[in-house]
């Protein structure tokens, strides 16, 4: 086959164009010097301790590189040396999880938590990273704290991000018409323990805050959904939630497995009208399986 020199140059030009187009997000991240999350398999991580954490600063910049900044402190209780301690931000989506290593900052927490076994001062973390390479979707922001071989765990920050055509922004839990849950009342399990409080959040919304767990199972990576059904109605509104640590609940049930059982969601006030009765279902999703708790009867 005889290809002229000009045609060859043109083919190279087109291939180069396609190459740059496909990898342009990566080039931008490289040239701007931004950190970028790497895909990981969350199941390869070891979680054997509870993570105490705080997020002091959290900002989602809807700028061109769609940056997120976060800092605070996190630790697992340990008595062993943690000189190789790392804290990573995990972005856990429906299908994939991404990880960004943070920079550790010296934070002495022993004075603030005298009853905890805290080793050293490497407990502050901070990072800013670009989310350009993340596919569209909703991501839970988790912290993975690795103290040493004996102690590491997942901390749930109670925050989520949503990436879509408009960029990246903070995601507030809300009513979801798109989630595929069929309430199977024959499958209600008494091994699910839960509680929910309905609090005034603002003029338009209630905050539903509570905890839920499956007995003797870890809450580390569970997802909690709420189903709200007006008594006598067939329709159920489903809500997703954000999860966070509830040491009080774990202490009350004397079981550290329940540490990450807390959840929050927001419900519009016209969905819980005064004078009406509602059934509130708590649904726990773990590894694709759904578990239904006993409905809570609520009179608004």
């Amino acid at each position, binding site marked *: 086959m005889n290809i002229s020199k000009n045609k060859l140059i*043109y083919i190279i*030009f087109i291939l180069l*164009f396609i190459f*740059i*187009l496909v990898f*342009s*997000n990566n080039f*931008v991240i490289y040239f701007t010097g931004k950190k970028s999350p790497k895909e990981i398999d969350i199941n390869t991580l070891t979680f054997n301790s509870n993570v105490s954490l705080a997020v002091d600063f959290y*900002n*989602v*910049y*809807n*700028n*061109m590189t769609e940056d997120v900044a976060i800092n605070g402190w996190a630790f697992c209780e340990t008595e062993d040396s943690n000189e190789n301690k790392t804290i990573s931000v995990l972005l856990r989506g429906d299908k994939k999880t991404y990880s960004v290593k943070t920079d550790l900052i010296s934070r002495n927490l022993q004075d603030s938590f005298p009853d905890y076994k805290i080793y050293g001062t490497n407990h502050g973390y901070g990072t800013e990273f670009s989310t*350009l390479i993340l596919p*569209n979707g909703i991501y839970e922001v988790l912290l993975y704290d690795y103290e040493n071989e004996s102690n590491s765990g997942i901390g749930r920050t109670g925050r989520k991000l949503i990436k*879509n*055509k408009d*960029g990246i922004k903070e995601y507030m839990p809300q009513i979801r018409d798109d989630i595929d849950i069929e309430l199977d009342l024959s499958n209600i399990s008494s091994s699910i323990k839960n509680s929910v409080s309905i609090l005034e959040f*603002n*003029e*338009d919304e209630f905050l539903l805050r509570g905890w839920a767990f499956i007995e003797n199972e870890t809450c580390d990576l569970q997802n909690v959904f709420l189903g709200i059904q007006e008594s006598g109605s067939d329709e159920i509104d489903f809500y997703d939630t954000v999860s966070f640590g509830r040491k009080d609940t774990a202490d009350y049930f004397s079981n550290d497995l329940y540490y990450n059982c807390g959840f929050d969601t927001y419900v519009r006030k016209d969905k819980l009208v005064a004078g009406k009765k509602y059934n509130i279902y708590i649904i726990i999703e773990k590894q694709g399986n759904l578990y239904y708790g006993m409905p809570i009867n609520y009179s608004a």
Partner: protein
Amino acid sequence: MKKSDIVISILSIILMCAFPAIFLYTRNVGEAELYEIFMPILVLLFIAAVVFIIIYLILRNVVNTTFCTLIFILIFSNFAIVEDIFKSIFNNLKYWHVLEILLFIFINLVIFIYKKRSSNKLIQANKVFCIIFGGLIIFNLILAIPNIVKKLGAESNNASIEYITQKDEETTFPNFYYILLDEYSSFSSIKKYYSYDNSQFYDFLKDLNFNVSLDSHNDSIDTITITTNILNLDYVISDGDGLLHAEKMKYRENPPMFDLMFKNGYEINNYSNLVSWDGKYGSIPDSYDSVFGDFMKMVLDNTALYPLLVAKDEMVDRQNTLILLDCLKQTYESSVTPVFTYAHLAIPHAPFVFDEEGNMTNFSELNDWKNKSCYLGQYIFTTNRIEEIVRNIVTKDPDSIIVLQSDHSARWTQDENGNEIVLNEDARSVLNAVYYRGEELDIDGLTNVNTMRCIFSRLFSLNLPEVEVNF
């Protein structure tokens, strides 16, 4: 090649580069100055010249090169619109994807023209561009002529109102601090639209012996209209009077409020660049100049250069606001002559460059009225800083007069679907609080203008009855 073809080619480039700035100028004659159009035109001409030279080295033909340059400038100067179209079709595209795709198409166009070599049709195309952009410029200029003439003919309207002051030799007037907070929502509006209870600020003002009106409304939601009337102590202009911005500005030269203070022995301390006194517009000491200016930014915002603009001017605004807040810490209790301070603070008006703590906000939310935390953060920051300022004045200069007013409440608040939700009446409700030497003053329900008339009546023993206004 005919000489006329070359002339038309060059002319078409100049007209295309000039069009965006001239178009914007003709649409904003009242606000913009003629000299402001030259820099954006020069920027586009410079870019056109660079592109022209590069392409000419390849094509070696003026007509063909001109055609390619025109296409480049056409896309370059409307890049933001083209990018939106691409993004509406392919959701995940970013700025650099669109830039690369357009460059690819453009390079292919140059290659195509290089291969064809013929320039007969392109001469016609260049002529069409020349006629279209020349025609558009002339058309827009003709439409703008009445406003340009009106603007040029605008004369100073400083009313020579003679206020007879009952001042005797021994009367000493107190220092007077007038602070206008742009877009600071009234107590009721901030509660209604932001679910924010500002009663702590109300209690704070009452504790300092401020007189606070909870039901004050102005006649407009336009800052220039409202503040011009305040400065004139009367309703001299209105939204529907058809006056150009430049004509309204004439009412702000040596305004009666300043005149009255000056005639009563006050030294004028003017921090507002929207009001002139004695031939000089006010200014903030050691303030920074804007990098681009509003007009240049408007033109460049549509071009492929828009990412470079970032928020440079907004950062300058932020810096200048901080400087002005510091200036307002200055009190004049030891001054021999009484001092009249006039300050117009551009917060909590957008751009939202302060969060609640005063930190810089997210660059993408500088004008975000949908995310309520943006305005609210700047609102709370403003409240906190004003508390510091008035506490300081009342402590050091307790015999002074302090007027805290807003021109209007938040106007453009949006619901989650992006619909504006603020009722006009709520947008016109304002903060209106007066510290009158620690004394009581009945300003309940008064507009800003009538509040000032009430204060001056008491201060200078004048008879300034309330003026009527049509809401």
